């Protein structure tokens, strides 16, 4: 008996783990180690406000990267899905639901919303997808702004804190950072893994040529809706972390500004690889916090805009694209050197 169960268990898990570990290089280990040590040397502000927030916004950006980078669908509703999850955590928290039920409920409902959004927008493409998802974001913003009984209109909810589990105050800087790091790290690895699964490959094929995929018998719409669903889970988790980090949520959290911010930081980092949104988020948050120190306080938004313009101007693929260019340039240089030596 035992050997049989062992075998099946092995069959199920074995393809996952090696394929997860296959892509691991030395720099992955270095980055992971740095992230683990980071809060021990940084102040609380750098731990939570810069570190954890970059991870959280990066995670919401990652859900957009999954849709836009792998699926070719630029969605402006990812922050809306995250915001919905955040609102649900606040609402269920006020209703004093048990912690696990609150989390499962919030993320599942946000995922259902994401699937619905995907279902509405999956038959469109390009600019029309952007328009539809933007319309949904705006509609949600006005809904929470004007709905008093459920969403508490303009004031939203404040004083939202993570539940105390195992006697740990999860909102204290160190535990919150590690909680965020663990959750976001798991999501990141999941997306890396997903991109190599049959589903992920089919999604990328749908992005490149939906007609050919349809003629091969793939259900294009179903793949797109499913991608929205998966991205919805990621965004929902990001939304939960975001409301815990800010301690509050209100219509301003899901307004047009933050919705566009997610697009900006994702494009800024680059859509080619899941790490892009995280790089973008770090740059975005550093700019947002410290641009005011670089220049006169009335002009600091100009600095932020200028940096974004410069990056996108010189590299349409974001910071990742710059890195790609640098690598190929280095490769050319070394090749030339070798030729010279011969």
């Amino acid at each position, binding site marked *: 008996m035992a050997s049989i169960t062992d075998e099946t268990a092995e069959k199920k898990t074995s393809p996952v783990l090696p394929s997860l570990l296959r892509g691991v290089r030395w720099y992955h280990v270095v980055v992971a180690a740095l992230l683990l040590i980071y809060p021990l040397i940084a102040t609380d*502000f*750098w731990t939570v406000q810069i570190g954890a927030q970059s991870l959280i916004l990066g995670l919401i950006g990652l859900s957009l990267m999954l849709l836009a980078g792998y699926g070719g669908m630029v969605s402006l509703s990812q922050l809306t899905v995250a915001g919905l999850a955040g609102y649900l955590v606040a609402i269920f928290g006020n209703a004093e639901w048990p912690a696990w039920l609150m989390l499962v409920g919030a993320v599942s409902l946000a995922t259902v919303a994401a699937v619905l959004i995907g279902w509405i927008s999956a038959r469109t493409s390009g600019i029309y997808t952007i328009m539809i998802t933007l319309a949904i974001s705006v509609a949600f913003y006005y809904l929470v702004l*004007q709905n008093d009984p459920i969403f508490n209109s303009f004031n*939203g909810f404040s004083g939202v804190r993570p539940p105390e589990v195992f006697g740990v105050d999860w909102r204290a800087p160190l535990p919150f950072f590690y909680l965020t790091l663990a959750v976001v790290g798991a999501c990141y690895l999941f997306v890396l893994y997903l991109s190599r699964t049959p589903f992920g490959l089919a999604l990328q094929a749908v992005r490149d040529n939906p007609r050919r995929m349809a003629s091969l018998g793939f259900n294009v719409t179903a793949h797109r809706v499913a991608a929205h669903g998966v991205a919805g889970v990621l965004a929902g988790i990001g939304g939960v972390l975001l409301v815990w980090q800010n301690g*509050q949520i209100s219509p*301003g959290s899901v307004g047009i500004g*933050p919705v566009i911010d997610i697009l900006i930081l994702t494009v800024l980092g680059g859509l080619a690889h899941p790490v892009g949104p995280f790089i973008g988020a770090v740059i975005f948050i550093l700019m947002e916090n410290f641009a005011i120190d670089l220049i006169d306080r*009335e002009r600091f938004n100009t600095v932020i805009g200028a940096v974004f313009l410069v990056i996108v101007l010189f590299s349409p693929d974001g910071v990742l694209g710059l890195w790609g260019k640098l690598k190929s340039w280095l490769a050319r240089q070394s090749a030339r050197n070798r030729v010279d030596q011969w």
Partner: protein
Amino acid sequence: MTAAAALVAGAGAATADEHPIKLGGLATLEGPFAVPGEDGIRGIRMALEKFGHEAGGREIELITASSDASPDSAVNAARRLVENDEVDVLVGPLSGSEGIAVKDYAKNHPDTTFVNGSSAAQRTTLDDPSENFFRFSTDGAQWQAGLGEYAYEEKGYEKVAIVAEDYSFPYSLVMGFMTDFCALGGQVVEKFYVPLGTRDYATTVASIPQDIDALYVALGGSDAINFLSQYQQMGSAKPMIAGSITVDQSVLGAKGQQRDYLAGTITAGPIADNWDDPKWVEFKETYAEMFDDGLPSPSLFAHAYYVNTLAVLTALDEVDGDLSNGQQAFREALQNLELETPTGTISVDENRNAVADIFITEVVKDGEGGLYNEVVKIVPEVNQTLGQPEEEFLANGFASRDNPSCP
């Protein structure tokens, strides 16, 4: 690398009292309230200038941060000031819902003292207040104290309809007006709450009942101008009672045929542009001297930030810059302050909210085709519960869309 630099800065700050006191200034320097936000910072700078950038023998260093009027950005900016720049005292933020969020944030940082900027939500200090959050400016309901009584008794308005923006600050204004007005027997037959930034008011104007004596309008900036021009174009306009931010210079100075209509409009607020008290005149003149790029007259935002910063500096002087022991002495000084300001003496109650004078004004023609707000009455020492005992006031609930009501 920058993280390491921040660490070093943090370690340096732990030494004795020789280093300057860090004052954080938080205002909305971006988004729809950027102009009021800049005026708020001007208020802080006026107070610092008055004290020669020094209080209690210690130099004051000002560090500013910006929000965009959303609670999120206010908390982010506050976090930056408190956790990264390690300010000793934070002055801000500007708008109502920001204030509520910063008050909640203050609870987690008991070693820093938070003093309000100009935000005027009722709940900030009345609902679950924070031990280290002080407000030397008044809230929206206080701003309208006495206006209802003046409208009912002096103007003879008995039936009123209300048009206001749909968020916490106008709710507070409406409550301030209705508390007096309804107690005297006035009727508010209908309330229209419109979203911020509405441009087309045709349906609202068409639904305003005709059998009213006056219309109470609590709209700000461009909303007010859009509404008022459409209301007059559609005929038979009733006299107006205005919320504190409705008839400022941007509305009074707007061109068009509204002069006759606006004359006679009554309003109330924490300041009055054309008050002839020497202290206020001096304040106005200092403002004009210091800022070439300023507004024609200091706005209520400049005033509120000025008063709050003044309270901080005065209390610091009283305790000789002593911020030890969790700033205990400093906070006691703040609590017991009798602050002399350009608009009279201000003190704080046990919830650390201001008790201050409120000005009732009426729009009059200046004889040269212009309009200005003339002070008709000063309501002395308005407290946050508008003179009622706290339990009685709280029993009626906080200001909201439907509260209060008196049809």
